């Protein structure tokens, strides 16, 4: 069966520091991968998605970037965090066939 991992689970970072969040999927190949952000008490905002290695589509212009160095690995990065980057970051995947989406446990980021 397929599983999706995210780490770290929680992170507290100062303003201006770099960020790297990692997501990996097991039990499938060539998944579509997604990064979402959820502000407190709000809905989910799609940040990036990827249909293959090195292929990244950005949905929201901001100081975040994403990379997909391996088939089942998706990384969210920032060179300098802003206060507004605080939130709950969720990684998701679909098989690319029926496109049912499955989510990881999320990373709760607080920027101070």
């Amino acid at each position, binding site marked *: 069966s397929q599983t999706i991992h995210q780490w770290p689970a929680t992170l507290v970072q100062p303003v201006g520091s770099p960020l790297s969040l990692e997501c990996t999927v097991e039990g499938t190949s060539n998944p*579509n991968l*997604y990064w*979402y952000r*959820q502000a407190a008490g709000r*809905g*989910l*905002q*799609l940040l990036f*998605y990827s*249909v293959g290695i090195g292929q990244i589509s950005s*949905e929201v212009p901001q100081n975040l970037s994403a990379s997909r160095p391996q088939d089942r690995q998706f990384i969210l990065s920032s060179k300098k965090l802003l206060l507004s980057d605080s939130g*709950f970051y*969720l990684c998701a995947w*679909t098989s690319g066939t*029926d*496109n*049912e*989406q*499955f*989510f990881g*446990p*999320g990373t*709760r980021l607080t920027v101070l």
Partner: protein
Amino acid sequence: GIQVEQSPPDLILQEGANSTLRCNFSDSVNNLQWFHQNPWGQLINLFYIPSGTKQNGRLSATTVATERYSLLYISSSQTTDSGVYFCAVEPTSGTYKYIFGTGTRLKVLA
């Protein structure tokens, strides 16, 4: 782009009551999913339902794609049903991308 609206935004029920949550979308979609976000933030898949009706225990869902809405029914609600319910649609015009609704926050009282 496509708009996805959920109603009601908030709902308080007594344990054992039934409820209906609605998801309206403004354009044609390839896929639609319902999720439950528990108090720890985990998004749990409830239904993958681009059209038709499905049932899973006390929950059922119906999507009428031609009329651009979906309904989630919760019967005999339990306190563990509390949380936020989201619908998410994959627009026909935007393959691979899911757009989430604003959510319905449900609280079930013992």
